[in-house]
């Protein structure tokens, strides 16, 4: 009887989850998505908790309360820290799958080997490997994003790296096969523990050769892994809601990863095994070309005289927390009747959609946030392109220089605007370690300094010039 009730509850929850993702297709309906998601999750929790097999309640209550205590502060992080938070939550998701898988294995083992069918073992091992790999992989990614001291920021490579990884993968696969065939052998629990250890090691090894600029893709891939580990858990527990929710999460991560890869003109394998930005650094243009710098006054004047301005934000805007100052600049320009749009590159920032969220936080209407493909045809008519902490996504070398590591990557055509002002913290190359040809263009003027400071000065200049009676 109870079985029927909980199954119907799961079915309704699955439907609500699909509606939730459907409502994410537009900002006007998106908040309904959250309500649907919460309703589905709450329903699933209630019907599961009401199962007759659940007899101990204290630990459940304690764990739920602890989840709230940690979860609420984690939802209040500044939006610039959202990539780290997301990576961390993938680690939690992976941990949940890995731990439940471990518990299930030892449970069934004690109940007798007849419960350990090959299909079940394959699902279980997949759950445990994906789960624990996601834990350490995501923790490494979160460490890189948070710039934790002992986590290397630059890609770490060593000789025979891919061979070593492949070899370890082969060993894991062999152990997994042995465990599937003899799940109740005397040595099986030991092999199980070794597989867990290898999965944890794998997570670390997969992330250390990947640089910061590739983080959007990596986060999306880890998202996919976390989803797939939930799917595997669904197979282990024969629970269709878990399979559905995991599949939705997995396909979402996959699609985002594909979008990110396309936006960088790179393949999955290249992102995962390419050790980007390490090898080709020597090909940088070098110091024989000179930047033209411009004063705040000059830049303010040029902005005032423009009739259309496009702002190209990048990770530098996030680092400097400059989005609110950007909003003030936007207001100043709008007040003068100037058209202001934002050009958003899919991989600007450290996770998919990062720039949109930061600018939305600063109250910039989302109708002025324009995707790369939609704004590029208009760039030649733009009077001023203002680059705020973006680097590789506006580097024309991606179009012209076959030797450049970013060659072929689609970029925002800032260089085609009538004039370009680029705000840059220092004269060092960007995250990918590549010099940017845009900065040496005849039409480009540099504004050196912290993005927040420079834009603040621009705003002051513009406000001072017009605010007088």
């Amino acid at each position, binding site marked *: 009887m109870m079985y029927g009730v909980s199954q119907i509850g799961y079915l309704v929850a699955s439907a609500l989850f699909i509606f939730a993702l459907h409502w994410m297709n537009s900002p006007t309906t998106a908040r309904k998505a959250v309500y649907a998601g919460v309703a589905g999750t709450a329903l699933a929790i209630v019907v599961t908790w009401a199962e007759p*097999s659940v007899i101990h309640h204290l630990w459940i209550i304690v*764990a739920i309360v602890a989840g709230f205590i940690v979860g609420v502060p984690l939802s209040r992080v500044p939006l610039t820290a959202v990539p780290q938070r997301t990576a961390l939550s993938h680690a939690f998701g992976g941990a949940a799958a890995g731990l439940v898988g471990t518990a299930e294995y030892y449970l069934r083992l004690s109940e007798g080997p007849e419960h350990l069918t090959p299909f079940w073992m394959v699902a279980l091992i997949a759950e445990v490997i994906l789960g624990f790999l996601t834990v350490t992989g995501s923790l490494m990614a979160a460490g890189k994003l948070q710039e934790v001291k002992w986590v290397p920021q630059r890609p770490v490579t060593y000789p025979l790296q891919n061979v070593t990884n492949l070899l370890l993968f082969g060993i894991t696969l062999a152990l997994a096969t042995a465990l599937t065939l003899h799940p109740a052998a005397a040595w099986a629990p030991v092999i199980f523990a070794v597989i867990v250890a290898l999965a944890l090691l794998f997570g670390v090894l997969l992330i250390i050769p990947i640089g910061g600029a590739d983080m959007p893709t990596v986060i999306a891939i880890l998202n996919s892994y976390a989803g797939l580990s939930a799917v595997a858990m669904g197979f282990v527990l*024969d629970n269709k809601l878990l399979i559905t929710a995991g599949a939705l999460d997995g*396909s979402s991560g996959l699609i985002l990863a594909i979008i990110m890869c396309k936006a960088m003109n790179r393949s999955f394998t290249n992102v995962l095994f390419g050790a980007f930005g390490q090898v080709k650094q020597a090909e940088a243009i070098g110091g024989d070309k000179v930047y033209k710098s411009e004063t705040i006054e000059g830049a303010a004047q040029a902005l005032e005289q423009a009739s259309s301005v496009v702002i190209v934000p990048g990770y530098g805007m996030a680092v400097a927390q400059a989005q609110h100052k950007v909003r003030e600049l936007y207001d100043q320009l709008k007040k003068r009747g100037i058209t202001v749009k934002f050009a958003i590159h899919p991989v600007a920032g450290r996770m998919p*959609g990062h720039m949109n969220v930061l600018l939305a936080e600063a*109250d*910039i209407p989302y109708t002025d946030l324009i995707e790369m493909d939609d704004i590029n045809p208009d760039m030649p008519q733009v009077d001023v392109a203002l680059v705020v902490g973006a680097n590789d996504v506006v580097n024309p070398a991606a179009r012209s220089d076959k030797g450049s590591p970013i060659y072929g990557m689609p970029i925002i055509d800032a260089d085609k605007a009538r004039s370009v002002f680029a705000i840059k913290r220092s004269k060092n190359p960007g995250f990918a370690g590549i010099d940017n040809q845009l900065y040496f263009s005849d039409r480009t003027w540099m504004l050196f300094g912290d993005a927040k400071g420079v834009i603040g000065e621009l705003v002051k200049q513009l406000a001072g010039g017009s605010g007088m009676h």
Partner: protein
Amino acid sequence: MIATLYVFVLASFIGLGVVRRVSRLLHTPLMSITNALSAISVVGAILVAGGDYPPRIRVLGAIALFASMTNIVSGFLITDRMLKMFKTDDKSGGRGRT
């Protein structure tokens, strides 16, 4: 068993179809909401943590339950917080005539 595989394949197709249509503006909230949705592994954790099993098994379930619950709470809250920020021009109101 084959029924569960069916569910997986069909749900993946639905997922691919639905997610493809998600606005690019909302990719960050998409990630946080799918994260909260996949924390539905909480149901597995409840069954392990609350079942009639030895404590060393149940403690694994309780930790897993804590981890999923953290994702559910923080995932939905931060998604809602971000979505609230997406406004059109008329609502934002700050077009400022001085």
